[in-house]
């Protein structure tokens, strides 16, 4: 009885190759990653065909949430420290060194000067709770009045870092008067050029921008 014996194969798979791939991908993601910045509010930006990429450094970000609350932040911890030092002395807020460090390490700021000290003095857990009830930075269409605190922030931030590029990230549902407060304040600070952060959408076919980009002959 010629019965061919099949050699029994082991079910153990060599995992080495898979391990290699896994770690290769892991290395890629670790190097390519840039963590999502902490955002105080959820903002859904409107769409546009504009493709200008936001720069990496030297950004001043003004966030406006759907109810019109304004949040302010700049990048770079050292510059943030300088900013809060300057602000504290200019507005005599009497911030302690640890409160200033809390600001430097924190994210967007959405409090009037009067509440700044109590917010920065709070523990991170308390801050989380407080953040939900943040009132936003007071702003107005007129500059150089005490109620326009956004103007003060912008002014000092531009002193600490003159290279700052100003980006406005506003929700599509923000009413125009609320948005106008921001642009009027910027105008008052002699800023006439700024960027609006938008979502990318495709250029509609057949329009001038489409022709300029893809030429007439394409589909």
């Amino acid at each position, binding site marked *: 009885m010629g019965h061919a014996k099949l050699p029994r194969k082991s079910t153990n798979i060599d*995992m080495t*190759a898979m*391990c290699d791939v896994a770690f290769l991908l892991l290395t890629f993601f670790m190097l*390519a990653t840039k*963590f999502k910045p902490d955002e105080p509010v959820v903002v859904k930006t409107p769409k546009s065909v504009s493709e200008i990429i936001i720069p990496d450094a030297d950004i001043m970000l003004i966030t406006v949430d759907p109810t019109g609350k304004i949040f302010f932040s700049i990048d770079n911890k050292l510059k943030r420290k300088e900013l809060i030092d300057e602000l504290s002395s200019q507005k005599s807020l009497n911030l302690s060194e640890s409160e200033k460090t809390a600001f430097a390490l924190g994210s967007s700021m959405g409090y009037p000067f009067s509440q700044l000290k109590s917010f920065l003095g709070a523990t991170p857990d308390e801050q989380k709770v407080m953040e939900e009830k943040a009132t936003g930075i007071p702003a107005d269409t007129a500059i150089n009045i005490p109620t326009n605190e956004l103007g003060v922030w912008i002014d000092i931030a531009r002193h600490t870092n003159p290279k700052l590029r100003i980006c406005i990230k506003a929700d599509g549902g923000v*009413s125009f008067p609320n948005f106008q407060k921001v642009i009027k304040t910027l*105008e008052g600070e002699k800023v006439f050029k700024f960027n609006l952060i938008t979502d990318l*959408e495709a250029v509609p076919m057949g*329009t001038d921008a489409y022709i300029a980009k893809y030429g007439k002959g394409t589909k």
Partner: protein
Amino acid sequence: MAELDTSSGGGHKKGPGVKKGKKLSTRIDLTPMVDLGFLLITFFMYTTTMQKPKTMEINMPYKDDIIKPEDQNKVKNSVALTVLLSKNHRIYYYEGIGDDPTKPPELKSTQYDTKNNVDAELRKEIISKKSKVADMKHRGELTAKDEITVLIKPDSTSSYADLVYLLDEMIINDVKTYAIIDITEVDRDFIKATEEANPGK
């Protein structure tokens, strides 16, 4: 690769007098390591922001008290298209700058479709205005420097999305000169009159 084979202990003597040490396999099971690797990959994939947000650049007209009104550039009536933004994504537009109260411009209105982010009527109007300006240039009624100018006037009931939509429309239709201007009392009256004329809209 990762499994080093050390089992062949080449030069050992074999025989009854030699005690055999128990041979341990040096094969390591790599499955947990792969698990860990993929877990971390998943974590990084979720937290990462691959695509940076895009921005739209706008230049506001330079404003300073030093500049006298007579030194400022006046927009020619014939190249201007005024767009008024109002509530519920309603857009009113007319040709010219509408500064002459005795000759009220013909106001047209459209509704901007928020779902598809498009307003075909307005786009058509911008394109036709562009060709009109080009024709006038051709006939020598305008100088080569004249360009179509769109004046965007959002009123207090409009939203930021409408404004961005309109700025986007400027990019789409390749309109070089446009400006966001404060709405005037005259324009407000135009909107009011149109609203009253078309109740229920």
